[in-house]
Protein backbone atom coordinates (compact mmCIF):
# COMPACT_ATOMS: atom_id res chain seq x y z
CA UNK A 1 0.00 0.00 0.00
CA UNK A 2 2.89 2.39 -0.60
CA UNK A 3 1.96 5.85 -1.74
CA UNK A 4 5.30 6.50 -3.33
CA UNK A 5 5.35 9.03 -6.11
CA UNK A 6 5.66 7.47 -9.53
CA UNK A 7 7.76 9.93 -11.55
CA UNK A 8 5.93 9.13 -14.78
CA UNK A 9 2.38 9.41 -13.54
CA UNK A 10 0.92 12.66 -12.28
CA UNK A 11 -2.49 14.26 -12.46
CA UNK A 12 -3.50 14.67 -16.08
CA UNK A 13 -1.16 12.06 -17.53
CA UNK A 14 -2.66 10.07 -20.36
CA UNK A 15 -2.52 6.35 -19.64
CA UNK A 16 -3.10 3.41 -21.96
CA UNK A 17 -5.19 0.64 -20.43
CA UNK A 18 -3.87 -2.83 -21.18
CA UNK A 19 -6.50 -5.01 -19.63
CA UNK A 20 -10.22 -5.22 -19.12
CA UNK A 21 -13.24 -3.98 -21.01
CA UNK A 22 -11.52 -0.74 -21.96
CA UNK A 23 -8.23 -2.16 -23.11
CA UNK A 24 -6.43 -0.01 -25.61
CA UNK A 25 -8.25 3.12 -24.49
CA UNK A 26 -6.36 6.23 -23.59
CA UNK A 27 -7.56 7.72 -20.34
CA UNK A 28 -6.70 10.61 -18.05
CA UNK A 29 -5.17 9.89 -14.67
CA UNK A 30 -6.76 11.65 -11.70
CA UNK A 31 -5.30 10.38 -8.48
CA UNK A 32 -3.86 7.42 -6.69
CA UNK A 33 -6.34 5.93 -4.24
CA UNK A 34 -5.40 4.75 -0.77
CA UNK A 35 -5.62 1.12 -1.89
CA UNK A 36 -2.83 1.81 -4.39
CA UNK A 37 -5.10 1.65 -7.41
CA UNK A 38 -5.09 4.47 -9.93
CA UNK A 39 -8.26 6.47 -10.43
CA UNK A 40 -8.85 7.35 -14.08
CA UNK A 41 -11.58 8.73 -16.27
CA UNK A 42 -12.05 8.73 -20.06
CA UNK A 43 -13.58 11.33 -19.81
CA UNK A 44 -16.83 9.51 -20.41
CA UNK A 45 -18.11 11.75 -23.19
CA UNK A 46 -14.83 11.45 -25.09
CA UNK A 47 -14.15 7.73 -25.14
CA UNK A 48 -16.80 6.06 -23.04
CA UNK A 49 -14.60 5.21 -20.08
CA UNK A 50 -16.26 6.19 -16.78
CA UNK A 51 -14.52 6.75 -13.48
CA UNK A 52 -12.60 3.52 -12.97
CA UNK A 53 -9.67 2.30 -11.06
CA UNK A 54 -6.84 0.11 -12.30
CA UNK A 55 -3.58 -1.28 -11.10
CA UNK A 56 -0.38 0.44 -12.08
CA UNK A 57 0.99 -2.69 -13.71
CA UNK A 58 -1.85 -2.89 -16.24
CA UNK A 59 -1.19 0.55 -17.60
CA UNK A 60 1.30 2.26 -19.91
CA UNK A 61 2.09 5.83 -18.92
CA UNK A 62 2.59 8.17 -21.86
CA UNK A 63 4.37 11.50 -22.02
CA UNK A 64 1.15 13.22 -23.03
CA UNK A 65 -0.38 15.23 -20.26
CA UNK A 66 -3.64 17.11 -19.98
CA UNK A 67 -3.20 20.42 -18.20
CA UNK A 68 -5.71 20.16 -15.38
CA UNK A 69 -4.27 22.87 -13.19
CA UNK A 70 -4.94 22.01 -9.57
CA UNK A 71 -7.99 19.84 -10.06
CA UNK A 72 -9.36 18.67 -6.75
CA UNK A 73 -10.93 15.24 -6.92
CA UNK A 74 -13.93 15.06 -4.55
CA UNK A 75 -13.31 13.06 -1.38
CA UNK A 76 -16.38 10.97 -2.11
CA UNK A 77 -14.54 9.24 -4.94
CA UNK A 78 -12.56 6.71 -2.99
CA UNK A 79 -12.34 2.95 -2.84
CA UNK A 80 -15.74 2.64 -1.22
CA UNK A 81 -17.29 4.42 -4.20
CA UNK A 82 -16.31 1.49 -6.39
CA UNK A 83 -17.36 -1.41 -4.23
CA UNK A 84 -20.24 -3.06 -6.06
CA UNK A 85 -23.73 -2.62 -4.77
CA UNK A 86 -25.00 -5.74 -3.10
CA UNK A 87 -26.77 -8.03 -5.55
CA UNK A 88 -30.03 -9.62 -4.59
CA UNK A 89 -29.10 -12.91 -3.01
CA UNK A 90 -32.10 -13.79 -0.98
CA UNK A 91 -34.45 -15.68 -3.19
CA UNK A 92 -37.63 -15.07 -1.28
CA UNK A 93 -40.27 -17.33 -2.58
CA UNK A 94 -42.72 -14.76 -3.83
CA UNK A 95 -44.73 -15.07 -6.99
CA UNK A 96 -43.23 -11.94 -8.52
CA UNK A 97 -39.68 -13.06 -8.08
CA UNK A 98 -40.50 -16.52 -9.35
CA UNK A 99 -41.43 -15.13 -12.73
CA UNK A 100 -38.69 -12.53 -13.13
CA UNK A 101 -35.46 -13.65 -14.72
CA UNK A 102 -32.40 -13.64 -12.50
CA UNK A 103 -30.46 -11.50 -14.99
CA UNK A 104 -33.08 -8.75 -14.88
CA UNK A 105 -33.08 -8.66 -11.12
CA UNK A 106 -29.35 -8.29 -10.71
CA UNK A 107 -29.03 -5.27 -12.98
CA UNK A 108 -28.16 -2.30 -10.85
CA UNK A 109 -27.35 0.74 -12.93
CA UNK A 110 -25.48 3.84 -11.94
CA UNK A 111 -27.28 5.82 -9.34
CA UNK A 112 -27.74 9.57 -9.33
CA UNK A 113 -24.72 10.42 -7.22
CA UNK A 114 -22.44 8.37 -9.47
CA UNK A 115 -23.57 10.09 -12.67
CA UNK A 116 -23.46 13.46 -10.95
CA UNK A 117 -19.87 12.95 -9.81
CA UNK A 118 -18.92 11.64 -13.25
CA UNK A 119 -20.22 14.80 -14.92
CA UNK A 120 -18.70 17.01 -12.22
CA UNK A 121 -15.24 15.58 -12.79
CA UNK A 122 -15.45 15.31 -16.56
CA UNK A 123 -16.45 18.89 -17.21
CA UNK A 124 -13.15 20.66 -16.34
CA UNK A 125 -11.16 17.84 -17.93
CA UNK A 126 -13.09 18.13 -21.18
CA UNK A 127 -12.53 21.89 -21.19
CA UNK A 128 -8.79 21.34 -20.79
CA UNK A 129 -8.79 18.75 -23.57
CA UNK A 130 -10.53 21.02 -26.05
CA UNK A 131 -7.74 23.59 -25.75
CA UNK A 132 -5.10 21.31 -27.20
CA UNK A 133 -5.23 20.51 -30.89
CA UNK A 134 -5.94 16.84 -31.72
CA UNK A 135 -6.00 15.83 -28.06
CA UNK A 136 -9.66 14.84 -28.20
CA UNK A 137 -9.06 12.69 -31.29
CA UNK A 138 -6.04 11.18 -29.57
CA UNK A 139 -8.12 10.18 -26.56
CA UNK A 140 -10.89 8.80 -28.76
CA UNK A 141 -8.52 6.59 -30.71
CA UNK A 142 -7.55 3.29 -29.22
CA UNK A 143 -3.98 2.17 -28.88
CA UNK A 144 -3.13 -0.93 -30.82
CA UNK A 145 0.01 -2.56 -32.05
CA UNK A 146 0.27 -2.67 -35.78
CA UNK A 147 2.40 -4.79 -38.03
CA UNK A 148 6.04 -3.94 -37.59
CA UNK A 149 5.56 -2.06 -34.33
CA UNK A 150 7.70 -3.42 -31.54
CA UNK A 151 6.90 -2.20 -28.02
CA UNK A 152 10.46 -2.56 -26.79
CA UNK A 153 11.53 -0.01 -29.40
CA UNK A 154 8.64 2.36 -28.88
CA UNK A 155 8.80 5.49 -26.83
CA UNK A 156 5.65 6.15 -24.90
Amino acid at each position, binding site marked *: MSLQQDPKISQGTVLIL*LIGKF*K*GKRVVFLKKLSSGLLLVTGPYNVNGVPLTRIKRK*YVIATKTKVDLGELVVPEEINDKFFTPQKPINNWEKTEEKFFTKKQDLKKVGLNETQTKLQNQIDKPIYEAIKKVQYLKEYLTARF*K*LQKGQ*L*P*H*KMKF
Partner: protein
Amino acid sequence: MSQDQKKEVKPKKKQTKKKKKQNKSPRLHVDGIFMGYRRGLTTQKTGTSLIKIVGVSTRKESEWYLGKKVAFVYNASRHHNGSNVRTIWGKITSSHGNSGIVRAKFKRNLPAIAMGKKVRVMLYPSNI
Protein backbone atom coordinates in the same frame (compact mmCIF):
# COMPACT_ATOMS: atom_id res chain seq x y z
CA MET B 1 -36.41 -16.87 -63.69
CA SER B 2 -37.15 -14.05 -66.06
CA GLN B 3 -34.49 -11.66 -67.30
CA ASP B 4 -35.73 -8.88 -64.99
CA GLN B 5 -35.62 -11.09 -61.93
CA LYS B 6 -32.08 -12.13 -62.72
CA LYS B 7 -30.99 -8.53 -62.93
CA GLU B 8 -32.48 -7.74 -59.52
CA VAL B 9 -30.76 -10.60 -57.77
CA LYS B 10 -27.23 -9.70 -58.90
CA PRO B 11 -25.83 -6.72 -57.00
CA LYS B 12 -23.34 -4.46 -58.71
CA LYS B 13 -19.83 -5.31 -57.62
CA LYS B 14 -18.70 -1.73 -57.27
CA GLN B 15 -21.49 -0.71 -54.92
CA THR B 16 -21.30 -3.46 -52.35
CA LYS B 17 -18.60 -2.88 -49.77
CA LYS B 18 -17.89 -5.04 -46.81
CA LYS B 19 -18.60 -3.18 -43.62
CA LYS B 20 -15.34 -2.99 -41.75
CA LYS B 21 -15.55 -3.92 -38.12
CA GLN B 22 -14.73 -0.57 -36.64
CA ASN B 23 -14.52 -1.48 -33.02
CA LYS B 24 -12.33 -4.51 -33.46
CA SER B 25 -10.50 -5.51 -30.32
CA PRO B 26 -7.05 -3.93 -30.52
CA ARG B 27 -3.95 -6.06 -30.57
CA LEU B 28 -2.16 -5.44 -27.31
CA HIS B 29 0.27 -8.29 -27.46
CA VAL B 30 3.39 -9.25 -29.37
CA ASP B 31 3.41 -12.52 -31.24
CA GLY B 32 5.93 -15.13 -30.29
CA ILE B 33 6.65 -18.67 -31.38
CA PHE B 34 7.03 -21.62 -29.09
CA MET B 35 10.36 -23.03 -30.21
CA GLY B 36 10.53 -26.00 -27.90
CA TYR B 37 11.42 -26.85 -24.34
CA ARG B 38 14.59 -26.05 -22.49
CA ARG B 39 16.90 -28.87 -23.35
CA GLY B 40 20.33 -30.28 -23.64
CA LEU B 41 21.14 -32.38 -26.67
CA THR B 42 19.33 -35.49 -25.58
CA THR B 43 16.99 -34.51 -22.77
CA GLN B 44 14.35 -31.81 -22.58
CA LYS B 45 12.89 -30.13 -19.51
CA THR B 46 9.25 -29.58 -20.32
CA GLY B 47 8.76 -27.26 -17.35
CA THR B 48 10.41 -24.38 -19.18
CA SER B 49 9.48 -23.32 -22.70
CA LEU B 50 11.56 -21.34 -25.13
CA ILE B 51 9.82 -18.49 -26.89
CA LYS B 52 11.05 -16.53 -29.86
CA ILE B 53 9.47 -13.08 -29.78
CA VAL B 54 8.93 -11.43 -33.14
CA GLY B 55 11.35 -8.58 -33.70
CA VAL B 56 13.62 -9.39 -30.79
CA SER B 57 17.07 -10.48 -31.84
CA THR B 58 19.43 -9.59 -29.02
CA ARG B 59 19.64 -10.40 -25.35
CA LYS B 60 19.36 -6.73 -24.43
CA GLU B 61 16.13 -6.30 -26.41
CA SER B 62 14.65 -9.36 -24.75
CA GLU B 63 15.15 -7.85 -21.29
CA TRP B 64 12.22 -5.55 -21.89
CA TYR B 65 9.94 -8.58 -21.96
CA LEU B 66 11.09 -10.22 -18.76
CA GLY B 67 8.21 -10.72 -16.38
CA LYS B 68 5.55 -10.18 -19.00
CA LYS B 69 2.63 -12.53 -19.19
CA VAL B 70 2.37 -15.00 -22.06
CA ALA B 71 -0.70 -16.80 -23.31
CA PHE B 72 -0.98 -19.84 -25.51
CA VAL B 73 -4.38 -19.61 -27.14
CA TYR B 74 -6.01 -22.61 -28.73
CA ASN B 75 -9.38 -24.01 -29.78
CA ALA B 76 -11.03 -27.03 -28.32
CA SER B 77 -13.96 -28.90 -29.75
CA ARG B 78 -16.17 -28.59 -26.71
CA HIS B 79 -17.76 -25.24 -25.87
CA HIS B 80 -17.52 -24.10 -22.31
CA ASN B 81 -19.25 -20.94 -21.08
CA GLY B 82 -20.15 -20.08 -24.67
CA SER B 83 -16.65 -20.34 -26.10
CA ASN B 84 -14.30 -23.03 -27.28
CA VAL B 85 -11.24 -20.79 -27.05
CA ARG B 86 -8.89 -21.77 -24.27
CA THR B 87 -5.65 -20.36 -22.93
CA ILE B 88 -2.67 -21.51 -20.99
CA TRP B 89 -1.12 -18.61 -19.11
CA GLY B 90 2.50 -18.22 -18.21
CA LYS B 91 5.17 -15.63 -17.84
CA ILE B 92 8.57 -14.88 -19.27
CA THR B 93 11.15 -15.77 -16.67
CA SER B 94 14.52 -15.04 -18.23
CA SER B 95 16.54 -14.58 -21.37
CA HIS B 96 17.93 -17.60 -23.13
CA GLY B 97 21.17 -17.15 -24.99
CA ASN B 98 22.36 -14.09 -26.85
CA SER B 99 19.94 -13.94 -29.77
CA GLY B 100 16.78 -12.75 -28.09
CA ILE B 101 15.14 -16.05 -27.25
CA VAL B 102 13.37 -16.07 -23.94
CA ARG B 103 12.39 -18.66 -21.35
CA ALA B 104 8.84 -18.91 -20.10
CA LYS B 105 7.10 -20.97 -17.46
CA PHE B 106 3.45 -21.78 -17.91
CA LYS B 107 0.88 -22.73 -15.30
CA ARG B 108 0.57 -26.04 -17.02
CA ASN B 109 3.36 -27.05 -19.33
CA LEU B 110 2.74 -26.34 -22.98
CA PRO B 111 1.69 -29.35 -25.03
CA ALA B 112 4.20 -30.54 -27.62
CA ILE B 113 1.65 -29.85 -30.37
CA ALA B 114 2.23 -26.18 -29.67
CA MET B 115 5.76 -26.28 -31.03
CA GLY B 116 6.05 -23.86 -33.90
CA LYS B 117 2.71 -22.32 -32.98
CA LYS B 118 2.02 -18.76 -32.01
CA VAL B 119 2.06 -17.56 -28.48
CA ARG B 120 0.94 -14.12 -27.29
CA VAL B 121 3.32 -12.04 -25.23
CA MET B 122 1.26 -9.45 -23.40
CA LEU B 123 2.44 -5.97 -22.48
CA TYR B 124 1.64 -6.36 -18.78
CA PRO B 125 2.83 -6.28 -15.99
CA SER B 126 4.09 -3.00 -17.33
CA ASN B 127 6.61 -0.70 -15.76
CA ILE B 128 6.71 1.89 -18.53
